């Protein structure tokens, strides 16, 4: 492993063990989210389903997409992208929810 790391200089190689662990975690979380949807939690059904989806997405981004091991520039790029996306959604929702013709 040491030799391999030297070959590509500072480029971090994520080990297969981590990929296997993340892959299994993602499959277990998929089964969990499917099972939870059959339990009546009221409004929290959507909350739990989204929370699990966000957690799965974070696992994919951090490990499969190597963000945990990447440069600060790339990390900042991802974070700002998520931030702008959430900002745009909240501004759109604020607009829709405050209009007379909406269904709120």
């Amino acid at each position, binding site marked *: 492993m040491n030799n*391999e790391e030297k*070959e*590509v*200089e*500072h*480029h971090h*190689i*994520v*080990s*297969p063990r981590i*990929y*296997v662990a*993340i*892959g299994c975690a*993602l*499959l277990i979380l*998929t*089964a969990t*989210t*499917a099972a939870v*949807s*059959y*339990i*009546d939690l009221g409004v929290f*059904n*959507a909350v739990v*389903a*989204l929370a*699990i*989806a966000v957690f*799965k*997405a974070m696992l*994919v*981004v951090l*490990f*499969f*997409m*190597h963000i945990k091991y*990447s*440069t600060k*520039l*790339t990390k900042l*790029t*991802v974070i700002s*992208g*998520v931030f*702008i*996306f959430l900002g*745009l*959604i909240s501004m*759109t*929702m604020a607009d*829709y929810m405050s209009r007379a013709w*909406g*269904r*709120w």
Partner: protein
Amino acid sequence: MSDSTATGHAVAAEPHHEHPPYQRHHFETVDQQFDATNFAMWLFLLTEVMFFGGLFTAYLILRNWYYPAFVEGSHQLSIFWGTANTAVLITSSFTMAMGVWCAETRRKSALLLCLGLTFFLGLIFLGIKSIEYHEKWVKHHVPGFHYSEQSFVNPSTDPEVYKEYHDAPLAVDMANKTELYFFLYFAMTGMHALHMIIGIGILGFMIMRAKAGAYTTGHVTFVENFGLYWHFVDIIWIFLYPLLYLISRHT
């Protein structure tokens, strides 16, 4: 003219910087080149986030407005196929991640195996998706000219779904909104499937190149960046699955 000659001489006079053939001359190091292309790939993925983001926002608003229609629309989807497809796609993301590792550690035959498996799992995903699309077509649940609200105005006429969920009949104006649900269903899963088809095409190209030994000489940028694309498509599905399939499954 004389300037360039002078520069040429100066360069020739200096000891030549050792660098691998795949390092472009305008980069100082392989690492710098890798980081630059990686950054560019992420910028592209952010535009993709914004693209799918519009669809997700439309979904969010319409689901809040027409919740009963979205619940009964969602009951039409097969939770079995949806969950199976999620598992298939996550597994393909895993094989793709392993492919990146194989390229990084210069394992040519293992890389071919990983890319081949990812290609194959991608095709399985599309196959399952087409089974689901076909069912929607047969039941007239594809939005447009032949759309039928029958299953929602009068749920007992759709015994398969009715015996499981006992959905109450929807008023006609709400039943009409199920067409919006299916419009979003086809728009979102369709755009996702298009990304899969493009990805599978690129995978085929990569398998050909990998056979010639292209990615196992230390130059892993293409495999790494394609991996990012493939995982991104996986993430979109990770959100589509609960949002489209898992609306109020309990009875």
